[in-house]
């Protein structure tokens, strides 16, 4: 139904979409997830051209809507959009909000629009608020009205731009219920959301957006339970990374510790895990490995903390000849390191820059 070809969106300061190629089928309920700034909202806003793409083509039902001659207003009538900040028309009553577009654009009679509108309001459970004004409603109610307003135009696809992000937790449920209902009824939807649980529940397809495009595309089970690609995994598992490159024996140890403290604070690493990680670094790297290395060395220290699983792993990679720190005679350091870890594994590969790899699972 919708085909997106090499979609690119550039801003003066950033290019959130570098190259997006994807197809959307009828009855798809697609949730779009990913870290901030990766172009999730931009993607759907490029679809209905609220933000016109810098380059690329979009086809809707065989019609190229990125063409200059295309009457975008007409296309938009087939696509509905629900916004994070609801955007109801403040000077109209609720029912007027819903009736406005069908009467003005679809040329429905007022009576017809009214009846259909009231029906929609009933569906979303807000018929009694028909003659209130938007500022009299709660956030969840406003969003439900916004959804009804979009549905009044009988769109073929509805785009949701973080529909529950601006809501208090108590109200998230009522909006999600409506969306779930629509999915059941077979409405084609694209939903940008941060709510993984909901995404998993309601969609048949998940787009993980990263690095300027649809980084990974799969079923909810695929994406959430078994992500294939690195970034996806990290995102799903909410992995936080601390990475440092050391190239000299006189590296700034104090700064390193401060940065490590900062990382731990920001990502809520538990105290004990931090202690042990620090121990792993100090004993293995500072005390054992670095003194062993030749003058021109590189050492990469990478720690990963998974907020989801609450585990810390460290990967120490360094150049030079094969050397396993656990084999060094440094009893003190080794025992301390061992005490702080679940497992320490060393491997050597002559081909990489980092010939030695020590993987530590911190307790």
């Amino acid at each position: 139904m919708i085909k997106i070809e090499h979609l690119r969106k550039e801003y003066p300061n950033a290019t959130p979409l570098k190259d997006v190629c994807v197809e959307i089928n009828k009855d798809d309920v697609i949730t779009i997830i990913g870290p901030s700034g990766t172009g999730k909202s931009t993607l759907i806003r490029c679809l209905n051209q609220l933000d016109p793409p810098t380059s690329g083509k979009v086809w809707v039902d065989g019609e190229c809507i990125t063409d200059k001659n295309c009457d975008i207003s007409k296309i938009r009538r087939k696509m509905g959009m629900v916004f994070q900040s609801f955007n109801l028309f403040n000077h109209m009553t609720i029912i007027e909000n819903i009736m406005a577009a069908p009467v003005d654009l679809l040329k429905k009679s007022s009576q017809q629009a009214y009846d259909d509108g009231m029906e929609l309001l009933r569906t979303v459970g807000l018929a009694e608020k028909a003659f209130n004004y938007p500022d009299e409603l709660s956030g969840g109610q406003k969003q439900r009205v916004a959804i009804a307003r979009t549905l009044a135009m009988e769109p073929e696809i509805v785009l949701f731009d973080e529909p529950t992000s601006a809501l208090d937790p108590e109200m998230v449920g009522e909006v999600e219920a409506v969306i779930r209902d629509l999915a059941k009824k077979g409405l084609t939807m694209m939903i940008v959301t941060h709510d993984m649980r909901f995404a998993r529940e309601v969609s048949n397809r998940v787009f993980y957006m990263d690095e300027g495009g649809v980084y990974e595309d799969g079923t909810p089970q695929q994406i959430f339970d078994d992500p294939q690609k690195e970034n996806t995994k990290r995102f799903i598992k909410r992995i936080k990374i601390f990475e440092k490159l050391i190239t000299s024996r006189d590296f700034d140890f104090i700064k390193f510790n401060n940065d490590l403290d900062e990382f731990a604070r920001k990502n809520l690493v538990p105290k004990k895990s931090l202690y042990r990680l620090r121990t792993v670094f100090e004993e293995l790297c500072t005390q054992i490995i670095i003194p062993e290395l030749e003058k021109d060395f590189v050492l990469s220290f990478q720690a990963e903390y998974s907020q989801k699983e609450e585990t810390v792993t460290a990967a120490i990679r360094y150049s030079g000849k094969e050397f396993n720190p656990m084999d060094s005679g440094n009893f003190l350091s080794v025992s301390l390191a061992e005490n702080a870890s679940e497992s320490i594994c060393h491997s050597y590969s002559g081909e990489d820059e980092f010939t030695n790899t020590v993987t530590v699972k911190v307790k």
Partner: protein
Amino acid sequence: MKKTVALLLAAIMLVMAFAGCKTENETLLSEDSALSDFSNAKIGVVTGTVPAIILPDMLPDAEYIQYTSFTDAAIALESGKVDAFPVEEAVCWAMGWEGLYFDTTKEKIVPVEAGIVFGKGLNPKLQEEFNAFLKDYSESGKLAALHEKWISPTEPEDIIEYESITGSKGTIKVAISGVQKPFTYIKNGRFAGHDIDMISDFAREYDYTLEFHEVGFAAFISGVTTGNYDMGASGLVITEERKESLDFSDPYYSGGFVFAIPKSGNEAERTLEDFENATLGVIVGSIYDGYSREFFPNAAIDSYQTFADLFQCVKQGKIDGFLLDIPNLNAVKRTDPGLSHIEIPGCYVDIGYAFGKDDKGEKLQSQMNEFIAELKENGTYDVLFEKWCGEKEPVGALKAPEYPETNEKLKICLDVSRKPYVYLLENEFAGLEVEIMYLFCEKYGYAPEFESAQWTSGVAGLKEGKYDVVSCGIYITEERKESVNFCDPYISPDVVMVIYEGTEESDFFAGLAESFEKTFIREDRWKLIAQGVITTVVISFFSVLFGTAFGFGLYMLIRSRNKAVSNITKVIFKIYSKILAGTPILVILMILFYVIFGKTDISGAVVSVIAFTLLFGSFVCGHLAITVDSIDKGQIEAALALGYSRNQAFFRIVLPQALKIFMPTFIGETVGLIKGTSVVGYITVNDLTKMGDIIRSNTYEAFFPLIATAVIYFIITWIAADLLGIIAKKFDPKKRKPENILKGVAK
């Protein structure tokens, strides 16, 4: 509630304004006052006296307070409890003996004669005798001598020995009043007075023994009527009523009742020396500015805008005096007798008509010279002069004659603040120069087209060719001759120092009513005000209407998708609104009127509408942009997402919400514009403010016309704001009545 508070404030404002203002009592009571001047006064009358009886009929609107004696009435006058009291002339002289000095009106209320009274028909012989005596007494001059003795400022000292008058024919009992100076009164325990002297002489001559009996007035009348007393004497006034019950002798005294009024203030004559260090008023840049500085180098000079201001200030004492040509002063003095003047020897001005410095102007100049010489020769000028510059105000409007269509049009600028040369009489142009001009046009085949404007505008207009003549009793000076042609002066009146000698006291409310009458009723002046109101309202209305359309149009151009159109409009708008914001609207009006549209025929009113349309349009465009911008963009996006075009989204979603925010400021700016139009008088438009000014110049009243103008503006803006408020309500979607939402849809 709000309206009540507003009304209350308006009332307080009025009262406070008046409390501070000294209203003129136009009828200042003085020796020269006419009886009618007392029509609203508080008059103290002595019960039973002739004036007490007849005055209420003569002056029914006056307030009368009864006193039992003239002394009481006199004391009341001294303390200000009454404005005046009627008193017989002779009696009034005598009051001076007691130290009560008053001025009296020259005009008599009623002439009276005094006679001796006898009981009706009771003693005809005695009457005859007395009348004979009186004839002799009078012919011999003794009566006159007696008058001179007793009707004088000083009290006679000699004592009459009346007790020793005895006669053989019997005793005559003479009733007298003890308190009727100078006729009969008690002095040091004895009786004295004119009548005492006279009757003593009678008794002596006709051989009677004299017995004076001092009685109160009521007893006096009844006593004589019943015959208890043979005669009664106390300077009793002969009246028909009294004649019914009493017989009078022939009259022995002729006098009359006059009004006694408070003695006027400082009578000292002022001279020019008094003005050495005084404060003088002048009109900025006028010929008197120079004269005043020349003649009174040490005086302080205060500058004012109009003659009306100068008159007002000299009355209030803000200035000690100002220079003016005497005909102007005399014309104003007719209604303001408190004004006076001091002569300035050797100071005079030349007055004439002003013409343009071109061929036409020269032609007019020589024609006018010819014409005036003719008028003076055949005496017409003197007739006209007498009419306009005489003692009395001419009655009735000056009707403009009909001129044939073919006559050449003559554009004449009149400054109507110069009585008696040019002014408004019953809303028509009138004055010496106007009538001369009518006649001039008749003779030389012109058709005059008058336009009322300030003389400065007129002179500027002469240069531009806007006017052919400026007529306003304009002073001919060498400096002015450089830019205009003058006819030879037709009058060279003396210049005098105008001063004020009246008092300011008056009854506040009477003064209020009078001011109202002068401002509105007299000469149907309310019509002028109505015209002014219409002008102000029309200019304001069209300025707001066109300004709104213009501003809205500009805004839509700025919004245009076409970059070129949008950018050009933005630049134009920025420049022109910056200019308007930084320049006073008055200056803009004058530039438009005198410079840009100077050579055209466009009227001041049209120029005003243009100027205010530009001004208002600037506001509308700018403010509309701000309010539209303030509408959250998300709603526009939602509209677009639904399939609305940009324009549809603007008109359906953004504009209704923007207008709601826009309206309050719009109403405020409209009110500001209405008030702002008050300066259009400077470009010859007769709006409400200008009309108030014109009335001020004619009535020489300051406060009432001004306060009235302010109140009318207040009312106009109030109505405008209310009307716009009703419209504004229509723009507030939330204020819609529930029934009106979704009309026609079954719910």
